């Protein structure tokens, strides 16, 4: 497989299959791992980075998880492809396009590993819906296999040794992307999210004025990596998410009983704009797609959720340009985005 093959493929995490996938867009677990005694990437000399990559590359290539995978050498990547991989959640924007750095992607984009980003290895498992437990089982098994072959830096008191002390211990970040329009519209979100952060949970996202512009999506992840076991972190996150989903469902019920007409109006207008626009900015499409998503979840409109999941990603700037096959000015992009949305909605119409 080549990188460009991904453009037309749907990642597994977009397939809307996991449990609670109506509210939970995706679940992700990431592990930070390093080789013993070798300098961390930011401090390593070029020849050391190459040596590290050389040691890891054959191990990953022969691992069965990457049998039909893609290996991307970062130094060969142009900036559009880099942005594309960022939008795909496969690399971080900080990942440098230099020698000794490579990304390997397993089938369906469920498993991926960045080599020589902040740590020697950043192992990721990304799935749709609320599946942290499954993500953990998969990543743990892969981690153990890789440790057998590579041998990760570890200390009995401090756990896995990472470049940044905020990742020390389990080296694990478990995160969930949730769609919370009910809490956002009813403004309950101002109470709920700060309460989560008091429990040591990190919330990233955009709320308050103009939160709609970001599609009411929030990334929720564990804070501390030391002093808590992996299973404990996963269980804690899952139980908090279940609670959060409960709050969101209540907010939606309240919203429907109080403002049914206005919600319906909003949803159908969003649909109308998406079906007819000739120019569509990235922000506008994110916001309208979020409204449409809510409409589907509240059974106001009958569309395939997969279509919305797909459009959420395909309408991102680098994706649009990859689909068209060349780099575009922002205005050209807005036009191409509008056309893509119109075409997809026409094709996927189920109403």
């Amino acid at each position, binding site marked *: 497989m080549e990188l460009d093959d991904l453009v037309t493929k749907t990642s597994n995490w977009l397939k809307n299959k996991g449990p609670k996938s109506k509210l939970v867009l995706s679940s992700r677990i990431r592990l930070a791992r390093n080789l*013993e005694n070798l300098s*961390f990437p930011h401090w390593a000399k070029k020849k050391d980075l190459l040596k590290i990559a050389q040691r890891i590359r054959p191990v990953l290539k022969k691992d069965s998880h990457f049998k039909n995978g893609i290996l991307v050498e970062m130094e060969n990547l142009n900036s559009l492809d880099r942005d594309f991989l960022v939008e795909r959640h496969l690399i971080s*924007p900080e990942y440098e396009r230099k020698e000794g750095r490579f990304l390997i992607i397993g089938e369906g984009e469920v498993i991926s590993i960045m080599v020589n980003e902040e740590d020697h290895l950043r192992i990721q498992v990304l799935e749709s819906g609320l599946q942290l437990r499954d993500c953990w089982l998969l990543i743990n098994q892969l981690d153990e296999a890789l440790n057998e072959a590579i041998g990760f830096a570890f*200390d009995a*008191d401090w*756990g896995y040794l990472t470049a940044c002390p*905020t990742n020390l211990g389990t080296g694990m970040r478990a995160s969930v992307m949730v769609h919370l329009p009910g809490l956002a519209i009813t403004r309950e979100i101002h109470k709920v999210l700060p309460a989560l952060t008091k429990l040591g949970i990190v919330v990233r996202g955009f709320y*308050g004025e103009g939160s709609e512009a970001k599609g009411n999506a929030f990334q929720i992840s564990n804070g501390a990596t*030391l*002093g808590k076991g992996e299973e404990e972190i996963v269980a804690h996150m899952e139980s908090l998410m279940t609670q959060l989903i409960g709050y969101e469902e209540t907010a939606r019920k309240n919203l429907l009983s109080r403002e049914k007409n206005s919600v319906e109006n909003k949803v159908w207008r969003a649909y109308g704009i998406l079906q007819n626009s000739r120019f569509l900015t990235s922000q506008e499409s994110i916001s309208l797609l979020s409204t449409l998503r809510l409409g589907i979840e509240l059974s106001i409109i009958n569309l395939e959720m997969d279509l919305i999941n797909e459009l959420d990603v395909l309408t991102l700037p680098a994706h649009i340009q990859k689909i068209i096959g060349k780099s575009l000015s922002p205005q050209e992009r807005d036009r191409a985005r509008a056309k893509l949305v119109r075409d997809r909605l026409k094709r996927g119409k189920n109403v």
Partner: protein
Amino acid sequence: MLCDECGKREATFHYTEIINGVTTELHLCELCAKKRGFTLPAAFSLPDLLGGLVEPEQISPLETELICKNCGFTYSNFKNIGLLGCSQCYSSFHKMLEPLLKKIHGTSKHVGKFPGRRKKEKREKSSDVQLLREKLKDAVAREEFETAAKLRDKIKEIEKAK
């Protein structure tokens, strides 16, 4: 509106971001937004965090000269960028890192999994008893006596096995 970063081009990306209660507004031009990858920025910057955590008077000039023998990274490098140089740095700077870890994570003891080849070591570790003792103290303080009783039995069991 002009771009916050370069101040030259028109800002087309507008972020209002709230991370754990702290609001940041950011208006960026196409180019600068792209440079940042226009995704969610990091939750916090470590040098900032360290700036708040490591009080200058806690570190004597001598300590900042500390250097990791394995990789040549210094403790002052760490204070500047918030990253360590290699896995050995953790033992090289052990004394300084211990209180820092407590501040970041609320504890400085790993209780997660041990990699396969070191599982045996975990069972034999005496500091596990120490951890259980700490948990016991917590449980008593919270008046969770049932948990406390279980912990006490566990500690007895381990000590007897020795």
